[in-house]
């Protein structure tokens, strides 16, 4: 037996005052000494101090120790006590001398006796990581009266039959390896802290290994691995089964699951399993983090503290229906028309109508026309087929089908069956799309053969359904159980009833562009999508007589819901910039369309290829009454050129985002009328939308109370019935974005003028914090872009926060008379070539003439004007400049030395 001891002094981040040794008699009557981290110990032993608001009881896994929770002890919520024991045999607790390993049941019992000795009476929130998860849950289930909440991080509770356990654990458990890897050598101990992303500093890794020096101190590490009940006859299997079986008892207890998806031990299936057993859990996935989540994302400690604090307020379950309860929801909104009980009402109303609903165009004209009658019948059959084959309301269906009649039918069939469609933009690229779709954890994947192949590559979960004809061999290879045709046939024969429309049912998970970090999933409920349709109808006076061409992803699906026909032009869906003027004209001609919805990238190429139109195509483009350019900022010059190509159309551009669209709208005439200003004028709120700002503080944060004051710059906040329900499995992000109840924080910075028009000044994360106060980039950028010889400009901050200087990065116009290199102040020769991801060689420091011209119009002091051949833009819209990357590049260039490659 080795008794408990205090950890050595000087371990990074560990306050020695937290450490205490506690003696507890275990159920066999043996006195055991524990090492416990306890925030109360640090406050002294005064008994006079008030009862804590609650206690966080943190249980580590194997082979870590309570050190894992040091960030949480440091970030303890006000009034809360944080207690983190080292399990017996582990950390600095006693190494019991016993013939048999300590089993799960005994560890749960140990924890209970320790908690009793420490005097934890509740409310208690348990926190468990790794195999500390089941132990903490065991305690939680045994102490329901004291339990206020449950936090789990990268853990698993259920080992399904035939499941061989996480690969690493399996390896460590093989009899020959177990002793060598876990006990005789510190291999497992060292490996546990080696998987951290980003890598842990050496002193922290040393601290994790410190209590496990020498084989005698590692016995429990081995036993712990051996105690994982991989088969039903294992001594701990029954206790684990009991814990799993009791989990439904936690239905009324708030649960927070924090997850690092890049975990070689616990995979997405374990998260899915937890979520299935605790469906009310709030989840946050830290994209890029791994197994040692508390190390990989120290800010998770703040999230836990924040979550615990939020428990004091009335619980808001993620599935609750909110509008009535949300404060401030007083003003009248656009109500869905009575006919719009559901997203398929308008389609149903046109059942039997032989008029075209969806027209697909190929390279040589119309490829396929599907009538309303056919579409309505197809949707009904598919929906019935989905239900008959087991799709349940609320289950998620990822769709990897290009825009067209098949996608439209599949989406409406999913809705009709009560399922949630998961739609990722192919423009994200396979990697980012895979990350996004895995995060959404679809139960089903409907895909064309190429889509199903991609689903394999992306390692998507879910049963596969093939769209389009596919032979048996390929179908097997792609893992598809059914094809859509099978489903339709099953649907025709089934008697299964379709669910009643539920306005609160979730309808869709869509994704942000990921221009700043990984793409985020955004959840919409049916009533929110209906409200979006209502907002579109009201803003653009859409009537049943309209017909539209949609080259803009989400809107391409809205035709049936609006009850109007849609033409899908021939283009490469992964590249919006591939839409040619002739293809657009053919799509317009196919329906004699009145509305055109497209992205700026698409419109840019339409304008560029306008010269190739023949007379008939030109005439076709004279027909539409409205062109909508949505999805990214639109240069006014482009809008003017669009207007010339479609002379009868009013040119409008809505402002909004994946989380809320449209928010405002402006026409080309109004843009011309208002003229330049501090930012981009995006117009007035559309019907049903309220706008306000959260003013910027001097250090560039938006943390003050919301303000309706004219001309005050701040984070733009939106309230409307068509704002997203929430971010998907991103509890921390959701809480930050909706911290003003009822309002969605957009992450954009702007101000409202005296005519209620919104001016967007940039992204909040791109605000430059100078010693003189915050500077927003868009206003200066627009003025610099207006200079002769300048094609594009980006304005960024360089230097530490609150003392940054403003740097303008300018892309010069290449003119035959004056090569762009001519703008370089001193010879560009010899200048190092910088490549930081997609930025590009520096051309140099601008000459004095351009520098002076930029300084004269910028409106803010400019420290340097740099020339670059192009700016980095996002893949999806090819329009949003990644200013963070520009700033990193500019900082490296201005440091005078070659920047490190990313």
């Amino acid at each position, binding site marked *: 037996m080795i008794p408990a001891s205090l950890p050595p002094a000087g371990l990074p981040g560990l306050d020695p005052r937290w450490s205490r040794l506690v003696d507890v008699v275990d159920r066999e009557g043996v006195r055991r000494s524990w090492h416990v981290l306890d925030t109360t110990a640090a406050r002294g032993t005064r008994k006079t101090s008030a009862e804590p608001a609650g206690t966080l009881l943190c249980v580590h896994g194997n082979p870590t120790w309570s050190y894992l929770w040091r960030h949480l002890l440091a970030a303890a919520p006000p009034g809360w006590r944080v207690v983190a024991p080292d399990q017996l045999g582990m950390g600095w607790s006693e190494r019991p001398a016993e013939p048999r390993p300590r089993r799960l049941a005994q560890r749960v019992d140990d924890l209970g006796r320790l908690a009793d000795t420490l005097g934890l009476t509740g409310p208690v929130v348990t926190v468990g990581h790794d195999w500390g998860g089941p132990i903490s849950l065991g305690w939680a289930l045994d102490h329901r009266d004291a339990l206020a909440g449950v936090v789990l991080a990268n853990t698993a509770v259920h080992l399904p039959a035939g499941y061989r356990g996480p690969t690493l654990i399996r390896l460590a458990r093989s009899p020959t390896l177990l002793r060598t890897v876990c006990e005789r050598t510190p291999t497992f101990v060292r490996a546990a802290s080696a998987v951290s992303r980003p890598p842990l500093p050496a002193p922290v890794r040393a601290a994790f290994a410190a209590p496990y020096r020498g084989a005698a101190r590692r016995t429990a590490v081995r036993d712990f691995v051996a105690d994982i009940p991989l088969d039903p006859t294992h001594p701990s299997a029954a206790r684990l089964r009991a814990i799993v079986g009791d989990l439904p008892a936690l239905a009324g207890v708030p649960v927070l699951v924090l997850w690092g998806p890049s975990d070689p031990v616990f995979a997405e299936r374990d998260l899915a399993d937890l979520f299935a057993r605790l469906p009310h859990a709030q989840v946050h996935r830290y994209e890029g983090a791994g197994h040692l989540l508390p190390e990989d994302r120290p800010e998770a400690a703040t999230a836990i503290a924040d979550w615990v604090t939020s428990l004091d307020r009335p619980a808001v379950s993620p599935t609750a229906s909110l509008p009535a309860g949300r404060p401030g929801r007083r003003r009248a909104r656009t109500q869905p028309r009575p006919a719009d009980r559901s997203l398929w009402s308008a389609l149903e109303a046109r059942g039997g109508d032989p008029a075209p609903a969806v027209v697909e165009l190929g390279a040589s004209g119309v490829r396929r026309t599907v009538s309303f009658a056919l579409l309505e019948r197809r949707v009904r059959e598919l929906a019935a087929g989905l239900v008959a084959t087991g799709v349940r309301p609320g289950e998620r269906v990822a769709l990897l089908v290009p825009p067209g009649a098949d996608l439209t039918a599949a989406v409406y069939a999913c809705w009709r069956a009560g399922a949630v469609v998961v739609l990722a933009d192919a423009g994200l690229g396979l990697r980012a799309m895979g990350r996004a779709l895995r995060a959404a954890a679809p139960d089903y994947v409907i895909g064309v053969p190429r889509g199903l192949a991609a689903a394999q590559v992306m390692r998507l979960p879910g049963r596969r359904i093939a769209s389009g004809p596919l032979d048996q061999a390929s179908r097997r290879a792609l893992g598809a159980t059914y094809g859509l045709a099978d489903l339709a046939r099953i649907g025709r024969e089934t008697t299964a009833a379709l669910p009643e429309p539920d306005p609160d049912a979730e309808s869709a998970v869509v994704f942000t562009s990921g221009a700043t970090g990984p793409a985020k999933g955004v959840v919409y409920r049916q009533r929110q999508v209906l409200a979006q349709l209502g907002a579109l109808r009201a803003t653009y006076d859409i009537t049943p007589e309209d017909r539209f061409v949609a080259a803009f992803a989400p809107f391409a699906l809205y035709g049936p819901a609006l009850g109007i026909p849609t033409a899908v032009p021939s283009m490469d869906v992964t590249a919006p910039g591939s839409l040619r003027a002739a293809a657009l004209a053919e799509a317009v001609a196919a329906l004699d369309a009145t509305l055109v919805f497209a992205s700026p990238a698409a419109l840019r190429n339409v304008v560029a290829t306008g010269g190739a139109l023949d007379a008939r195509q030109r005439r076709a483009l004279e027909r539409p009454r409205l062109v909508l350019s949505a999805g990214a900022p639109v240069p006014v010059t482009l809008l003017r050129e669009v207007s010339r190509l479609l002379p009868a159309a009013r040119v409008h551009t809505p402002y909004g985002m994946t989380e809320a669209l449209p928010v405002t709208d402006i026409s080309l005439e109004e843009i011309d009328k208002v003229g330049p200003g501090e930012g981009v004028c995006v117009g007035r709120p559309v019907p049903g939308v309220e706008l306000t700002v959260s003013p910027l503080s001097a250090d560039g944060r938006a943390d003050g109370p919301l303000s309706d004051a004219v001309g005050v710059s701040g984070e733009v906040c939106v309230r409307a019935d068509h704002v997203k329900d929430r971010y998907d499995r991103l509890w921390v992000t959701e809480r930050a974005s909706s911290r003003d109840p009822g309002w969605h924080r957009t992450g954009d910075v702007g101000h409202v003028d005296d005519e209620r028009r919104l001016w967007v000044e940039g992204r909040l994360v791109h605000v430059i914090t100078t010693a003189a106060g915050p500077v927003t980039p868009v206003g200066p950028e627009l003025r610099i872009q207006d200079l002769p010889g300048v094609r594009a400009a980006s304005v960024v901050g360089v230097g530490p926060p609150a003392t940054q200087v403003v740097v303008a990065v300018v892309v010069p116009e290449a003119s035959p008379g004056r090569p762009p290199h001519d703008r370089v*102040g001193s*010879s560009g020769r010899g200048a*190092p070539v910088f490549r930081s991801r997609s930025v590009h060689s520096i051309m*140099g*420091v601008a000459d004095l003439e351009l520098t002076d011209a930029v300084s004269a119009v910028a409106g803010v002091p400019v420290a340097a004007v740099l020339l670059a051949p192009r700016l980095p833009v996002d893949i999806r819209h090819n329009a949003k400049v990644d200013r963070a990357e520009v700033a990193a590049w500019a900082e490296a*260039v201005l*440091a*005078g030395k070659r920047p490190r490659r990313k």
Partner: protein
Amino acid sequence: MRVLVTGASGMLGGAVAQVLYERGDDVTVLQRRPSGLPCREVLADVTSVDAVRQAVRGQDAVVHLAAKVAVTGPWREYERVNVAGTRHVVDGCRATGVGWLVHVSSPAVAHSGTSLVGAPAGPAEPRTARGHYARSKALAEWLALAADGPSLAVVAVRPHLVWGPGDTQLVGRIVSRARSGRLALVGSGAALIDTTYVANAAAAIVAAVDRCEHAHGQALVISNGEPRPITEIVARVCRAAGVRPPRRRVPFPVAWAGGAAAEALWAVRAPAGDPPMTRFLAEQLATTHWFDQRRTRAVLDWTPAVSLDEGFVRLASWYAGQA
């Protein structure tokens, strides 16, 4: 107020004395050569204990600028003037009951050759300071600030790359080399560099005299707070002087090696004038260094009155007057 200014024959020392004099302070200046200033003048060397003691006696405040500013020469010279000279001033102040001492230092005392991006004024560190000048000034700053106490309030100010009309150091060298076609930029020429227009530096030093009670014990970097790429600074100086800006560019490793060679040569036998390049200079020209000015401005209750743009206009008109 009775104020002694040492090193008033230099551009900055002269400007400080002038400001003090014009606002009505009783100013004495101490330097080796006549300053041409309309104040009481002591012609002496700070290396002379007695002369310094004599000059500080009866002063309310002392502004100590006298220093050997160069890129070559033996260490003992720097030590004699910059370290021992400062010790004489500090000792003199303490012995004669002077209340306030403003020690004029340099950001180079805390610069170990790395990039400084919006940096605070780090601690002076002779062991890592680059070159004899910086090392000796670091020791001098240590001496000066160590003397800060209840009877003597000491503040160290570090003006960064001071320039202006009549400047023989930065401006003078750029212009004369550009004229003779010997000027080249080191590295990309994009390194962001802080500079200080002379009137601003003088005003900040005078502010330090006035705010000594608040600022004592601290080292404060002084700059215009308008960093610019080195290319732009050189180009603007050349334009103000009416000379062609440099077109040549020397990669940093070449300049550094050349600097090392020149230093070795100058150490063996000193040719006339300064070497064309030193390692310190190569680093200074190729490495960004600009500073966080918030603390300086708050502590001194001072902001630069002359912008860089205005400074270059004044420089141009000064060169026009010279022609």
